[in-house]
């Protein structure tokens, strides 16, 4: 099938590469010329395991191309995916500017029946909006359909998620239209849900909102554990074995960040409010999440105060492991607070440091290894749960530090082990390990 993907970010590039890999002819479009130039030259604008090889392979085989020319790409395609960004505005609503702009251009370009698929995460009702915009801007009155096909991939394992999704959701106005997408996805042999457009849009928001709620739930319980003297890791082990609950997304810590959960939860709160439903439960989950960084900084302050003469090594900056994405990363807030309190910060992240430079306070010093960051530090603060931190040589880490104090925002290490190694160790929802 001839496909075009508009918006070559995380979602667009991965979707395009995977569909090409499945044998389709794919053109990826973006309006940022450098991005397209980079891709055409064989470069990678984002970090994603396995993506570079997959893109290279399909470009070499002539199934995948890149362009800034939307009109040409749309005219050659049967199915057009919209995968542009849908950031949150300052008030938490969804900025649909890019979606609307793309819809306009698609309308102008369209010369024959086309299926326009919205893959960007958009508020319920956007499907209708896209249809209206296209209609209004069509240069020729050819028929078209708008389908919702929300994306569930996670950065860091985006390829795997796209090849083996838990479910494929297709919201289509008629069964016939749904068939086009069914055909496209059939080789994946995964469960499909075929429904109407608003239900499909809702599934995406409700899923992310629930996962956000799960994380905040556990963080509230972690707060209770800290005061009751219980151990959150044991609590979640006990509850996660209940199959109705499941162990996933039960890690207490600094809470969620990234480009999806924060904006999608805000957006659902707004959609609900517009419909006259006050989604207090979700608002509470959002507030709980917003308090995590402050909670962590207070923990640091309590143990180290005053901070103005302290040097703190921050390990991990990305919003989660296996990505260079800094959007809504907890390191931003923690870093800002610590700098405000006068601490000197030396940071290390395996891949996100370039992106971090743009959003962290200017005084932050970037190092090429965790040990370099920890050199002469009064404390280490772990923000992102990178696997390589799990397997750090902790003896070596302690040896280079001025004071062996560790604040673990992700409960990555075992308190017992930290005690044995002679650390003072503070983590989330567990008793601290204090110097004897």
């Amino acid at each position, binding site marked *: 099938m001839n496909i075009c993907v508009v918006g070559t970010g995380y979602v667009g590039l991965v979707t395009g590469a995977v569909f090409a890999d499945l044998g389709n002819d794919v053109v990826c479009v973006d309006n940022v010329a450098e991005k397209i130039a980079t891709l055409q030259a064989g470069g990678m604008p984002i970090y994603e395991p396995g993506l570079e090889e997959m893109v290279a392979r399909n470009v070499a085989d002539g199934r995948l191309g890149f362009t800034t020319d939307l009109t040409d790409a749309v005219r050659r395609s049967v199915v057009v995916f919209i995968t542009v960004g849908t950031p949150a505005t300052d008030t938490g609503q969804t900025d649909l500017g890019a979606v609307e702009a793309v819809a306009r251009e698609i309308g102008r370009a369209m010369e024959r029946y086309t299926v326009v698929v919205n893959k960007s995460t958009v508020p319920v009702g956007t499907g209708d909006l896209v249809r209206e915009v296209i209609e209004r801007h069509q240069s020729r009155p050819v028929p078209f359909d708008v389908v919702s096909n929300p994306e569930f991939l996670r950065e860091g394992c985006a390829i795997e998620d796209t090849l083996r999704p838990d479910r494929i959701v297709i919201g289509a106005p008629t069964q016939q239209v*749904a068939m086009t997408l069914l055909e496209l996805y059939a080789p994946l042999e995964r469960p499909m*849900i075929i429904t109407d457009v608003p239900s499909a849009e809702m599934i995406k928001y*409700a899923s992310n909102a629930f996962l956000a709620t799960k994380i905040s739930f556990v963080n509230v319980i972690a707060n*209770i554990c800290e005061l009751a003297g219980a*151990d959150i890791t044991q609590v979640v082990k*006990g509850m996660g074995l209940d*199959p109705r609950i*499941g162990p996933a997304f039960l890690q207490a810590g600094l809470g969620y960040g990234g480009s999806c959960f924060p904006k999608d939860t805000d957006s659902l709160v707004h959609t609900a409010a517009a419909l006259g439903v006050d*989604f207090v439960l979700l608002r509470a989950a959002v507030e709980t999440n917003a308090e995590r960084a402050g909670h962590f900084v207070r923990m640091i302050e309590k143990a180290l105060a005053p901070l103005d003469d302290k040097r703190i090594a921050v390990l991990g900056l990305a919003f989660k492991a296996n990505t260079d994405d800094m959007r809504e990363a907890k390191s931003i807030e923690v870093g800002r607070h610590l700098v405000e309190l006068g601490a000197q910060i030396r940071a290390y992240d395996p891949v996100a440091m370039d992106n971090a430079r743009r959003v962290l306070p200017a005084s932050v010093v970037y190092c090429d290894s965790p040990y370099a960051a920890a050199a002469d530090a009064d404390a280490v603060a772990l923000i992102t749960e990178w696997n390589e931190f799990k397997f750090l040589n902790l003896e070596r880490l302690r040896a280079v530090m001025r004071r062996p104090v560790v604040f673990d925002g992700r409960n990555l290490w075992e308190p017992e082990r930290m005690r044995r190694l002679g650390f003072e160790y503070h983590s989330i929802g567990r008793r601290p390990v204090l110097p004897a």
Partner: protein
Amino acid sequence: MRRTKMRRTDPGGITSNQILGIFGTGYAGLVTSVCFAELGHTVTAIDKDHDVVARLSDGTPTIHEPGLQELLTGNLESGRLRFTTKAEDAVVGSDIVFLCVGTPPRADGRADLCQVEEVARTIAPLLDGYKLIVEKSTVPARTAYWVDWTIRRLAGPNREFDVASNPEFLREGTAVQDFLKPDRIVIGADTERARSRLLDLYRKGFHCPIVATSVTTAELIKQTANAFLATKISFINMVSDLCEELGVDVATVARGVGLDPRIGSHFLNAGLGFGGSCLPKDLNALITVAEDNGVDVAMLREVERINTARVERLLAKVDRALWVLPQKVIGVLGVAFKQDTDDIRGAPSLGIIPRLHSAGAIVRVYDPAAAQNIQKLYPPNDRLAYVASAVEAARGADALVILTDWDEFRSLDLGGIRSLMRTPIIVDGRNLFEPARMRAAGFEYHSLGRGEATLRTVPRRVPV
């Protein structure tokens, strides 16, 4: 006593059969008793209710639970199980004493620990040598500390005992099955002695993961698990309200959401919310413990509020469907808090039936198992009757209101039901039916989270 000694000298040191005393023969206690007896242990179960003890000793189950009858009769016959009202029988000579007494909510939401404290006081003077005392009742974090304190104060010096926690996760309706094949066993012990004895007890016959942790953590696990399940239900009910506004079907949304294994499809049925003797009370108890400790649990408070509001939402639908209630005949299907149980504690029916009645409606109630229990609360009168079948409840009714997800309601003969009713209106608090099917069967059908969509002539759902 002699048997105890002999067994302890068994070669290999693996204690096989133990002598257990169990306090409380309600849902949790009775199932625990018959199941441990079935596994070969010698069980003495005590309840202070003479009636209950007499009936159980006769082999008559006091609760409705699949599989219970056979286990009860079989183990009474084998002599491994007996019931008593005398605490000595359960404590003296036993290795482990389980607390399975009730911990109902007090008016202020806290768990009422009177029964637990009473058992602690009862046990204290009866201690004869080392005894392991295990909380199986669901109790707030730190209760074990107070049980220990109470016994220590009253038992006199040199009494050896430990207090451990072993929360019970069985669900009414599948209690026997849940007890014998649990997802996990949680053992909370602060001494090696207590931990190894509990591990011993569960070594034989169980093949699930065991989480061994501290007493306080174990206590918290149970309440947290229930609070999370409650959160899941309230979450989907909130989404259900949104779906009504958007004219989409919450069942489809839940299916799409539940296919994510990090979420799972369980407990995502929109409807009247959670009830029963556990979820509401455990949630509330967790909230109070947290707030006592200064933890902000606005999220959990909201879970509770959403659930309470479900009853109002259903009543509003009844109002909208029937307009004026006085003298309208309403058939109520189901009063149990969920299917396969006779338990009505915390059931939405408790909020709904009196409200319909006081609004002037003529209420006819049917439940396959729980009618007896609700009759005790609301005796029949000229406008409240208890009938023997769903068909009877529908006869001449202006509307049927479904409050429990009993399977037998799903397989009702809809044509027959409709022909008996004065007006074919169904208000379904459990979303048991497909709106399209009900429309085809000639019903005006109101459910939750699909409300407006269900009345639309052109279905918006594209069938798969």
